Each structure stands twice: as structure tokens, then as C-alpha cells.
């Protein structure tokens, strides 16, 4: 089970952390956010990192999932899990409609199209006052429960989200190492060659786009019930950029890189808050710095550096051994 060694490792860490550090805000509360971000980042990483596409509008799907849950449970008394499913169905439809024309574009054009889409969805959320409560958002979202077990405390939310996050990671690791995963990566490597190997590149791109959108929708629904309140501010252009940053900063084409990026970008603002007014400036500087000096991402870059260090040490030992012997 060498393939999943890392997965078991992080599973143990995630599940044990609240036990080792009980009642800790940074584990219990911020950790739950990190979990949601992991679900989002891991899905987006399949699209951006492995398949080589771009999306600057994924916050829209997070928002559609959240608002679907919010509206259906508060205004139409849907069962929360049914509302979540309905949200995912809606996202499935929207993502399929938008993906086909959008993914025919490449590079900056693709970026701009997804950007435009994301902003339009956000504006609709703000403007449809009657349905969504407008810029003030909507609250009183009922509690989510599993067979009567109410998820109504921080620690319960932590574990529920952690388990779903681990499932999402497991999905991602499985996909990467399989025929569809190789098809994704082939599309990134060379669309011409991929087609020549019998891969329908358009379908491949659309499928991974829709998959990442569905994960975002799911995370959005969880978010709505966790916060019991949603407002359009959580689903804007900046959050879309944050998501892309998680994928890129952590390291593209690496599930663990996406996890790393998600965790980093969840905790970084908490850390930067102590710098108060300098927070935005420092954040921008860090973003630029990492992308300029470690474009392969922090996780991939750092693991390469550690790998090289280990290799060099091993070589030194071998040289020393051969000289002594």
C-alpha cells in the first residue's frame, strides 16, 4: 500500500489533532475551514494542476451550493441533505452548460471567461434580493444532522468536515493514478497527442471541470450549514483567486501540494492578523515571492529541495565509505 502511505499518514494526523489539542481554536475552528478549503483545492487542482486548465471563477460553484442549501432549507423546508443534492444537481447542469464553450478557450482567454462567469454569478447573488437576501445575506440556516445526530458544535463540525476532506483526497489520489487521470494529464501535456491516443479532449476537460465544480458545491453546502448564514461576500472574485492560489502556491499536479496550499492559505491570514494594516501588503508580497522564486509551488519545491539534500548526503556518505574502504 505504498501508494496511499501519505494518505494514511495525514488521515491519522487530521483525526488525532483535536484529541491532542482539545478545545484549541486553531485546530477545531480554523481546522474545519482548512478542511473545506482542502475539498475545494483538491478538486480545483485536478482541473488546474493536472489538466492544465484555469478557472478564476470557482467561488461561484461554492456559492451556488451554499445558497441552494440556504434557500431550499429556509424557504422551502427541504431536508438539508436533499437540498445539498439539489445544489449539486444545479451545479452539474450549470457547469456542463458553461464548460463546453469556455473550455474551447485557452490561456488568458479561458482565465477571463471563468473570471467573467464568477463575477456574474456573484452579482446575481447580490441583486436577487427576494431570493437570496441580497448583500446582507441570509441566515437561520437549519442544523445539519446525520440520522438524528446534530452537527451543532465546533468539534463535531471538525470531524465531519475532516472525514469528507479525506474522502475527497482519496478520490483525487485514485483518479490521478488511473486511466481518466492519465487522460487529464495527457490533455495538459499535448492535446494533439492526447486526441491521437483516442482521448476526447473536450469531454475530458468538461468532466474534470464539472467534477471540481461538484466538490465546490458540496463544500458550499457544508459551509452554509456550518455558519448557518451566507452572504455574497464569501463567494466573490477574491475567494476564487484564493482558491487558485492554494493550488498554485502549494504545487500544481500534486494532491498533497493542494492540501498544503489549502492549509497554508487558511492559517496565513490568521497569522498575518497580528500585522494589522500590513496584512494585505505582506500577503501580496508573499504571493509574488513564492511564484517568482518557487514557481513549481511550495510543497513541490520544498520536497524537491529536501530530496536533493538527501541525495547529496547519500552521495557524500558513499564517497566517504568508498574512500575509507
Amino acid at each position, binding site marked *: 500500500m505504498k501508494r496511499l502511505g501519505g494518505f494514511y499518514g495525514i488521515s491519522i494526523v487530521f483525526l488525532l489533532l483535536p484529541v491532542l489539542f482539545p478545545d484549541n481554536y486553531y485546530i477545531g475552528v480554523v481546522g474545519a475551514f482548512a478542511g473545506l478549503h482542502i475539498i475545494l483545492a483538491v478538486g480545483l487542482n485536478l482541473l488546474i494542476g493536472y489538466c492544465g486548465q484555469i478557472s478564476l471563477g470557482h467561488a461561484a460553484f461554492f456559492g451556488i451550493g451554499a445558497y441552494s442549501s440556504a434557500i431550499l432549507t429556509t424557504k422551502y423546508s427541504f431536508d438539508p441533505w436533499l437540498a445539498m443534492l439539489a445544489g449539486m444537481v444545479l451545479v452539474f447542469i450549470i457547469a456542463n452548460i458553461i464548460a463546453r464553450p469556455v473550455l474551447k478557450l485557452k490561456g488568458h482567454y479561458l482565465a477571463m471567461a471563468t473570471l467573467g462567469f464568477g463575477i456574474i454569478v456573484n452579482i446575481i447573488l447580490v441583486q436577487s434580493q427576494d431570493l437570496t437576501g441580497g448583500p446582507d445575506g441570509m441566515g437561520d440556516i437549519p442544523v445539519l444532522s446525520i440520522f438524528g445526530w446534530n452537527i451543532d458544535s465546533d468539534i463535531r463540525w471538525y470531524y465531519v468536515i475532516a472525514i469528507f476532506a479525506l474522502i475527497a483526497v482519496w478520490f483525487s489520489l485514485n483518479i490521478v493514478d488511473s486511466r481518466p487521470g492519465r487522460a487529464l494529464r495527457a490533455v495538459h501535456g499535448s492535446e494533439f497527442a492526447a486526441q491521437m491516443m483516442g482521448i476526447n479532449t473536450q469531454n475530458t476537460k468538461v468532466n474534470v471541470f464539472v467534477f471540481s465544480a461538484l466538490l465546490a458545491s458540496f463544500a458550499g453546502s457544508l459551509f452554509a450549514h456550518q455558519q448557518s448564514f451566507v452572504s455574497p461576500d464569501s463567494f466573490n472574485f477574491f475567494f476564487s*483567486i484564493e482558491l487558485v492560489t492554494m493550488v498554485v502556491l502549494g504545487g500544481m499536479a500534486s494532491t498533497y501540494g493542494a492540501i498544503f496550499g489549502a492549509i497554508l492559505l487558511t492559517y496565513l491570514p490568521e497569522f498575518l492578523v497580528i500585522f494589522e494594516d500590513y496584512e*494585505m501588503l505582506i500577503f501580496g508580497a508573499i504571493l509574488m515571492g513564492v511564484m517568482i522564486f518557487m514557481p513549481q509551488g511550495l510543497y513541490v519545491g520544498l520536497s524537491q529541495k529536501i530530496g536533493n539534500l538527501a541525495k547529496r548526503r547519500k552521495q557524500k556518505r558513499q564517497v566517504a565509505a568508498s574512500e575509507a574502504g
Partner: protein
Amino acid sequence: MLDQLLQFLITGITVGSVYALVGLGFAIIYNASDVVNFSQGEFVMIGAMSAVTFSTMGMPLIIAMIGAVIVTVFIGMSLYKFAIKPAAGASVVSTIIITIGASILLRGAALLIWGKDFYGFPAFSGEEPIYLGSATMLPQNLWVIGITAFLVLIVLWFFNHTLLGKAVIACSCNKVAAQLVGVNVTRMLLLSYGLSAMLGAMAGILVAPITFTSYDAGIMLGLKGFSAAILGGMGNPLGAIAGGILLGVLESLGAGFISSGYKDAIAFTIILLVLFIRPSGLFGKKSQERV
């Protein structure tokens, strides 16, 4: 109805001029370095804010404007030198994140220096309205449109009729070939970024008397300027200008006749339509990928 139309046209062309200048800045940087500069809007903001500060410090208007332009040009060139050049050859996503990071950094700096307040700027030649039928125009509108036209003409003259301008174009076509004929590519790129920053700063200064400016005023402007560039055809300077004016007018008409809440959505819907139907924009060229 007709006078409303005229009013909306005036507003539209004024705003459109700002979009045109921002879009032109995008086009210049894109042509020179294949980079979409997401911090272009921040050039506009910094130009406006600096001009306000210099003017408040007592400098006469013209000096404040020149000072603001100098500050912004310096920032534009620094962006190239310290962020874009070291990352040459990076993927599209990476470069996007870098310029987005730059925009966040510049906004963060602006937040530090100027806080969250809104700042105003006295109009260049007073606020006495001019009447055109039953539509009103402020003198500042004329300044915006007029100076924009002037700047556009200078930029076109620069690229089409000066050796330096042609050298910049050469760099965007083929850096290696340009170097081989003796063009200093780095200097040309610095020039491009500086020029782009100047245009952005001027846009900010021109429009600050009409719409107040603040630390985050650049975001939407940048995005819409980018939209203008795409509408006109990415990389086509004239297209960017036409795209900007067209975008401004369409936005104004849409806000006036349909709904002002969805005004911003108009710009982005247009972009999606352009990208779906004719990605090369109104005036762009189609490209072929060779296998």
C-alpha cells in the same frame, strides 16, 4: 428618451475613455511581454491617489499630475524589473498569480498610506455645467475625452512613426531577433511597462474629479479595462481603445435603460459573448497552432 440617450452617451464615452486607457495599457504590456497585468487597475488608483496627495501638499495641479505620473511609471517599471523579468518563462497561471499578487501588494500599500477613505480632486477647469440640449456635461468630461484622445494619438504616433516605437514592436514579435539587430530588450520592456503605467495614471488623474478614488478603486477598473482589451482583440492597441469606448457606452446604456444594479454584469456578459463567439475580438487576428 433622446435626451436621456445623449446623457448616457456622454457618461458612457467618458467612462469608456478611462476603460480605453486602461485597456491600451493592457494591450501594450501584453504585446511586449505576453503577460496579462492584473495590477493595471492599481496604476490608475495610484496615479489618482498620488495626484491628490501632491495637490494637497500644495503643489500646483500640473506639477502634482506630473509627480503622480512619475511615481506610477516608477512602480510600473519596478513591476517588470522585480516581478516579471525574474519569472520569465513561467506558465500562464503563474504569471497571473504574480500580477494578482502585485495588485494585492499595491492595494495593501495604498491601504497603509491612504487608509480606506475616499479622496477627491478639484476639477481641472471648474464645475460649471455645459448644456447640450437637455443633457448636462461637466468640463471635466471634456478634459477626459480630450486628453484621452491626445494620449491615444501620441501612443499611435510613437509606435508607428518612431524608431523607438518600432523597436518595442520588434521585441513583441521576436525577442531574440530584436536582440540580434541591436535592440536592448530589457530597456524596451521597461519602456513598455512605464508607458502602460503612465496611461493608467493619466486615466486615474483625469477621472478622479468625477468619481472619487480610494484604495480599492482599481480592481473593477482593471477588470473592465481587461474586458475592453479582449473586446477589441487582445494585443491590438486600437482595438483596446475602441473596445473601451464601446464598453463604456454599452454599460452606460444598459445601466440607464435596463438596470443599474446589474451594470457590472453587463461588462462581463459582453466578454463572455465575445469569447464564445469571436475570441479574437472585434479587431484581433486569428491564430493557427501548427502541429
